[in-house]
Structure formats: C-alpha cells, structure tokens
C-alpha cells in the first residue's frame, strides 16, 4: 500500500475480494429477451452447484489434482488388460463393504459362529446374497489379482522404475491370501475347522519359527475359544488395515510413475528407430 497518503484504518477499508467472489466474467451475453422461468431455474441451479464446487475447490485445491489424474496422458496401446488393477481394487472395496455389514450379525464364538452364519444365510433380508457376494467375491479378488500380476509380468511393467510397486504388489498378494486363510475359518463348519487345523499345522512345519507361528495363530498350544476371535481380528482389522494402506501406496506410485506401453508397441518403436537410420 502507498505510504504517502494516510490510508483508512484497516477495519474501515473494504475487504479485498476473495478469489471466489470476483466478478464473474460475462461469457454469457446479455439476453435480448426476458429469460424463461425454466431457463432461469436451470441456470441458477447450475450456478449453485458450480458455487459449491468452487467453494470446495478453493479450499482443497483438488481440481488441478483431479485434472492431472483424470486427463493424464496414457501410453499408446493402453487396453482392457490395464483395467485389471482397478478391477482388483473394486473387488477389495466390495469385500470391505459386504464384510462390514456381515460383521453386524456375525458372532466369533466357537459355540455361536455357525449359528450366526446360518442366521445370516437364512433369516436376515438378502443375507444369502450378501454372504454369497463376500464368499465368491474373495475368489474373484484372488483371480483378478493373479491376472493383474500376470499382466504386469508379461508386459514387463515391473521393470525400472517400477520395482518398488511390484514389491508392494507381492506383499498385497500375500496379505490377500492371508485374508482367504483367516476368512475360511469363520463359518465354523466341519470344512472350515479341519481346513484351519491343517493350515495352522502347515505353518507349524517351518523349522525354528514354525511352532511359534502356529501358537500365534491359535492363540495358544491348542485350538481354543481364543483361536476364532483371533482369526476374526486378523481378518477384519489387522490385515485389511495393512491392505488398505498398501493399496494407497500402490496407487500413489502408479499415479506418480504412470503406466507402461505394451511390449509390442515398444518393439515397434525400436524397429522404427532402426528404420530411421
């Protein structure tokens, strides 16, 4: 501000306009007739929505990020195989949502678990559907995960500078399989029970750490009332928390490093270079 003329005290000066309050640039010409009522409504509704979005955008600065993310350049040759990663994530989200709702009825007690699972299936509205989605969705997720991994491997998308993302993906694979293992016990029928016994004893067969690993999973030396709550806690809290965090890191790296072109296009490019010579 000028220091020559004594200015008004600050509280008397008009506030500088906030960015959102600037005069709207009149890109819509003055209407030459009275606007129709419907038009006016539509316009003000649109403006209201734009104002809300503008208000949010001004405070969060998401629009440059969103523009960069949604309209980013992708390599030539990007095809349907590139959607396998998103599909896997969608499967995870579906598992998370159905899982939260199943937890509202499920009871991780050795004497009540089977009963509550059958209550979900037979009594609750849409229970069979939701439990089925969770059960078959787990298989779908693992199939999609392996397909996504195969795509990455075959297209060579694990190479520099994407090694770290491959490593994170492998950890996600292991965690997803651990979800399958811990979830298998929860219906607590004969199949669940014996499959878990066998799986825990497989863990016990590792030299040196095996017995400790099995004891950790069982919560003691024998399969007891603690085992099923422990599997439930791993299935609901520990492993999904880790998976969600690692999916975040995985996506961050994908957004940062971009995707690769399919190998056949890279080969074409190489040949083009040779022909140019």
């Amino acid at each position, binding site marked *: 501000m000028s220091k020559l003329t004594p200015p008004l005290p600050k509280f008397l000066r008009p506030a500088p306009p906030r960015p959102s309050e600037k005069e709207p640039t009149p890109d*819509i*010409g003055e*209407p*030459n*007739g009275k*606007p*129709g009522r419907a*038009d006016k409504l539509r316009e003000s509704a649109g403006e209201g929505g734009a104002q809300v979005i503008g208000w949010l955008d001004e405070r969060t600065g998401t629009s440059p990020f969103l523009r960069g993310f949604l309209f980013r350049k992708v390599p030539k040759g990007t095809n349907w195989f590139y959607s396998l990663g998103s599909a896997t994530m*969608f499967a995870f989200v*579906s598992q998370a*949502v*159905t899982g939260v*709702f199943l937890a*509202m009825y499920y009871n991780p007690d050795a004497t009540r678990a089977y009963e509550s699972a059958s209550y979900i299936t037979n009594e*609750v*509205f*849409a*229970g069979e*559907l*939701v439990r089925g*989605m969770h059960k078959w969705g787990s298989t779908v997720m693992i199939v999609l995960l392996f397909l996504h991994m195969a795509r990455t491997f075959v297209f060579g998308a694990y190479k520099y500078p994407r090694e770290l993302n491959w490593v994170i993906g492998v950890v996600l694979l292991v965690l997803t399989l651990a979800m399958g293992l811990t979830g298998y016990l929860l219906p607590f029928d004969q199949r669940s029970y014996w499959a878990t016994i066998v799986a825990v004893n497989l863990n016990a067969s590792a030299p040196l750490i095996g017995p400790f690993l099995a004891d950790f999973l069982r919560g003691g030396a024998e399969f007891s009332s603690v085992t099923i709550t422990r599997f439930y806690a791993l299935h609901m809290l520990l492993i999904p928390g880790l998976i969600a965090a690692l999916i975040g890191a995985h996506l961050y790296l994908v957004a940062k490093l971009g995707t690769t072109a399919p190998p056949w296009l890279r080969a074409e490019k190489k040949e083009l270079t040779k022909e140019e010579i």
Partner: protein
Amino acid sequence: MAENRSDKNRKPRYTADRGMPGAFEGETVTRRGFMTGGALAAGGIASAAFALPALGFALAPMFTDGTVDRWQDVGPESDFNPTAYVPKVINTDPGVGEAGKATIYVRKFDPESDKPSPSDGGSDPIPYVVLSTRCVHLGCPVRYYQAPKRFVCPCHGGIYDFQGKVDGGPPVRPLDRFEARVTNGRVEVGERFSVNSELRRFSPRDPSNHLDGLWQYLYPARPST
C-alpha cells in the same frame, strides 16, 4: 423465442457446429462425453449392485416385525389379585442369556376402577393388567411400591400411578402393557403394546416416543406392524 435465445447463449447443439474435427452430422454428444457418461453409468450400476443389497441387509431390522408371537405362562390365576401388582420374569429373547429376561408386573383387571380399558376395538377387555417395567422415558427399569401404589424409575425420577399412567417426572406416556389371557386356569402373557394417556392402544413403540395428539404422527410405527 426462448429456444432461439438459448441456442444463441449456449454452445451450439451439434458437435459439427462447434468446429470439432471428425464430427458426424447430427451428432449432439461428443464421443468423450458419451464415454465418460457411459463409464460413470456402468460404474454406478456395478456399485449399486453390491451396495444396495448390502445396505438392505444392514437396515432390514428397521423394517421387520420385532414382536414375538408366543404366550408365556406366568403362574396360576390364584397368584394375582386386583389390588396389588406381582412381579414376574419373562424371556423376551432367549438368545442373549440374562439380558433377554425382563420383569413384568401383573394384577387382575378391575372393571370398576380400570376405565377406560385398553381393549382392541370392540373385543372384551384384557382380563389381567400386565405392565412392562421399561420406563417410557429412557428405558430404565421401574419398580413398584405397594404403599403409595406407584411405580418409580430410578434413573430420572419418573412416577406412574396404579394404572401405569404418568404421575410425574419426564415420561411421555403410560407404561407399556402386554396382552394377557387365561388358559386352563393359568395366566399367559403375550405381545407388548403401547398406550397413550387415554389408554388407547398402539403398536409397540420405543420409550421416549409421544403418542398423544399430533405427536403420534411424529413417531411412526414400525412399517410391518
């Protein structure tokens, strides 16, 4: 004309008029717009396909009938009289152990003093007055004192009279009641129901729900009851 005006003020209707390269004649939606819309719609349908059943699954108990259609024996007719309440224990949900047990107060119906009777339209009055101990303020258990013939709630001091009507404190309506009948000389207790201050009968409501005057429309019944 409004049509002309909006044509002038907005983007041209046809993509060809906007000078887009490769626009087809008569095309009104850009291909990018179409793909975006299609992807959003497909994603929306896919999300709804699993989110809606899951939501219904979680919210279903709000719309299902919670009443249990069974009669529980609480003792022979000789246990009860019209001048004093007798506490009895019934089981509202066998699945939750101790928490499923509820105390009720039972006495014989007295045609002289019990007017009006909360009967179901034109049917006979219920032969026993069976009161729930759930205070209709916030659900604490009330206790009956014989000397003043009053029910008192320990939590916030609600007081009910001998008929279960509010006598003081915060409760909003009389104590809930239960259906009762006599079979082979034994008193049996059935479904819970709520009453308003005139002892008019309503479907079972939560404590704290008013049932008088216009209030009854602000606290709707469960859909299936």
